[in-house]
C-alpha cells in the first residue's frame, strides 16, 4: 500500500460561488464546467469589460471573489440566459451573474436600473416610467377609440382593463403607452381576431420588471405580487407575461 494521503491544513473559506451553490437547486451545476466555451461563443456580452461567461465562471471557481463581485460586466449581461441554453452541462451562469449583481451596494448599481425600479415602486401600476393607473386607462381608451373609428373592420375590437373573469391577464411594457401608444395595437388586433378573452389590470400592468434586473429581490417581489394579485382578484386563469 502507498503512504497515507497528505492532508493540507487550513479551513477552506467559503467563497462567493459556494454561497450561490447553496442557494441553487443541484448547486446550479456550477462545478460541472468542461470549459468548452460554448457559453462565450453564444453570449452577446462576450468581450465587454474584458469578460465573458466562461472566464466569469472560471474566476468564480478559482475563488476570485473580489473580481467577480466588482466587475461591471454583470450589468452588461441582458439576462437572456443563452449561456445556460447552449451549455452542455446546463450550468446556471445567469444566476451566478444575478447574485454577483446582488453583491453590489444598491446605490452603486447602474443609475438607470435604480431609477426605473424606484419608479415602479411609486404607484400601483408598477410602471418603470411612473405612469399612473389613470394615465394608462386614458391612453388605452383614447387609442382604442381612434383605431375603432379609423379602421371600421376593427370597430368591435376591445382593450379591456380590469375585466372580471377574463381568461388571460396581460401585462404591458410601459414604453408603449407612454411614448409609442400605437405599438400596443397590433397585439390587440391579433387577440381580437383570435377571439381571445383577455384583460389588462389597472394595478400591476407594468411588465418591464426593472427591479429584477436591478437584482433587488424585495422590490421585485413587491411589483410581481401586485400584478399577480390583480390577476387573481379579476379571476383570470392565465397570466401572460408579454415581457
Amino acid at each position, binding site marked *: 500500500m502507498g503512504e497515507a494521503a497528505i492532508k493540507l491544513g487550513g479551513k477552506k473559506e467559503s467563497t462567493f460561488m459556494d454561497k450561490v451553490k447553496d442557494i441553487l437547486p443541484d448547486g446550479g451545476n456550477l462545478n460541472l464546467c*468542461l470549459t468548452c*466555451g460554448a457559453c462565450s*461563443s*453564444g453570449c452577446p456580452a462576450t468581450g465587454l469589460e474584458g469578460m*465573458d461567461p466562461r472566464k466569469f465562471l472560471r474566476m468564480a471557481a478559482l475563488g476570485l471573489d473580489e473580481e467577480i463581485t466588482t466587475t461591471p460586466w454583470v450589468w452588461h449581461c441582458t439576462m437572456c440566459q443563452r449561456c445556460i441554453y*447552449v451549455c*452542455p*452541462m446546463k450550468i446556471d451562469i445567469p444566476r451566478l451573474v444575478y447574485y454577483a449583481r446582488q453583491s453590489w451596494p444598491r446605490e452603486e448599481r447602474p443609475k438607470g436600473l435604480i431609477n426605473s425600479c424606484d419608479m415602479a415602486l411609486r404607484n400601483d401600476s408598477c410602471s418603470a416610467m411612473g405612469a399612473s393607473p389613470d394615465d394608462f386607462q386614458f391612453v388605452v381608451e383614447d387609442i382604442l377609440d381612434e383605431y375603432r373609428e379609423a379602421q371600421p373592420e376593427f370597430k368591435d375590437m376591445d382593450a379591456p382593463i380590469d375585466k372580471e373573469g377574463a381568461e388571460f391577464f396581460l401585462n404591458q411594457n410601459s414604453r408603449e403607452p407612454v411614448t409609442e401608444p400605437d405599438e400596443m395595437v397590433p397585439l390587440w388586433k391579433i387577440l381580437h381576431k383570435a377571439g381571445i378573452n383577455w384583460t389588462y389590470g389597472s394595478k400591476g400592468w407594468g411588465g418591464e420588471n426593472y427591479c429584477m434586473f436591478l437584482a433587488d429581490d424585495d422590490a421585485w417581489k413587491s411589483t410581481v405580487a401586485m400584478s399577480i394579485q390583480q390577476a387573481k382578484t379579476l379571476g383570470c386563469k392565465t397570466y401572460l407575461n408579454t415581457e
Partner: protein
Amino acid sequence: MKEKHIMVMGGGIAGMTAARDLAGFGVNVHLIEKSGFMGGYAIGYTCKATTECLQCGACSVEKALKEVTESPNIKLHLSTTVEAVTSENQKFSAKLKKGPFFIDPEKCNNCGVCYEKSPVKGAVLHGYSKNNHPLYAITAEGIQNHRDFFASVCPEGAISIDAEAATETISVDALIVATGFEPFDPNQKPTYRYAEHANVITGLDMERIKRDHGALVRPSDGQVPEKVAFIQCVGSRDERLGHLWCSRVCCPYALRSAQSIKTQSPEMDITIFYMDIQNIGKDFPAFYEACKNDFRFIRSIPVDIFGEENDRLKLRVFDEAEGTAGLETFDLVVLSIGIMPNPENQAISKLLGIKLDDDGFFAHNDSLNQTLTSQNGIFVAGTASGPNSIPGSMAQAGQAAGEVLKYLGVAQ
C-alpha cells in the same frame, strides 16, 4: 466435443469478429443482422491513410466481412430480427423473423439495374462491400409503392414482389449481443441548423461523401472546400441531453480524416474546435502533436452557424486569447457526432432479460470483464456496451468469443 451453436445478434464489426473467432474453434454460429447487409456502420467508413496508414481499422471490417461470408461454420441471417427468446436447461430457443427477401440471392448477379432505374431514391439500398451478396436490398415500402416496376425490372428474374416474411426457430447454447449504436442526431443541437444548411454535415456524412466522391466535397455544389471546420463533442459529454459519456472515437476520426483530406488537398485550411482532445492510445499523442502543425486548434465550441452567400457558413467564434467573439466564414462544417445507445436497447434488454446501464448501453456484470451481462450465457461485445472504436470493438468481441468458449467448456 458435442456440436455447439451460438447466436450472435448484430452483423457489425463486433458481431462479425465474434462470429469469425468462434467459427475458428469449430463452433456453429448464427449471425443475425437486421438490415440487408453485413458490416454495420463500420463497413461504410473510409480508409484514413495519408502517405502512411493511420490505423483507423476501416480495412479490417472488409476483411472480417469476407471471412464471415466465406466461413462454413457461420450461417448468415440477413434482414432478420429476433422476436422471442426462451431459455431452458442452459439452452436458448430463439424465434427469428426472416425477410421478406424480395431478391433471390441464387439468381441475383449484382448487376445493379434495379438500383439504377429505381423510380425513387431509397427504395433500393446498396451495400458498401462487394462481399455482400446480394449487393442490393429492396425495402418493403419500395415494393408496395412500385409493384409494377419491380415486377419487371430484373433481367435475371431475381425479384419476387410477393415474397413474405418467414419464421424460424433456432436452438443455441449461448448468445452474444452485438447490436451496436446509433449515431447522434445533430438536430438535437438546433443552433447548428443541420437540417437547414447543406454544408453542415456529420462525421458519418463525411464518410459517405468521401466514399461516393473519392474526396471530401461540399454537398451543395460538389466542390472541394477551401476552408473546413470540425466541431468536436457534438452530442457527447452533454448533461442537457443526458449523454455524459465521451464517445471516444470522434477525436481520432476527426483528426485522422482531417489528415487524410489535407493530404489530398494540401491547400485546405482546417480548423478544429474542441474542448479537449481525447489523446489516448499508443501512437495518438505523437499523431496529435503532428496535427498541431497542420490545423488550427481553437479551444472553444461554437454554437451559432449562420448561412451566407454561396452556401458558405458563418460561425461565431470565441477567441480565448483576445477574449472576444467574432464571425468567421467556412465552406464546410463537420459536426463530430458521437456514439449513442441503440434505440432498440430497451426492447432487446426486455427480450433477453439483461440489464442496461444508466446511459442506456448494456451493463457489465463484472467491471473487470466487459463482456459479461447480467444473464448467464449471454455476452456483449462492441458499441452495444458503450462507445468504442473499430479496434476496440474487435478486441472486446474477441474476448466475448473467448468467454463463450470457456462457458461452453470448449476452451479453458
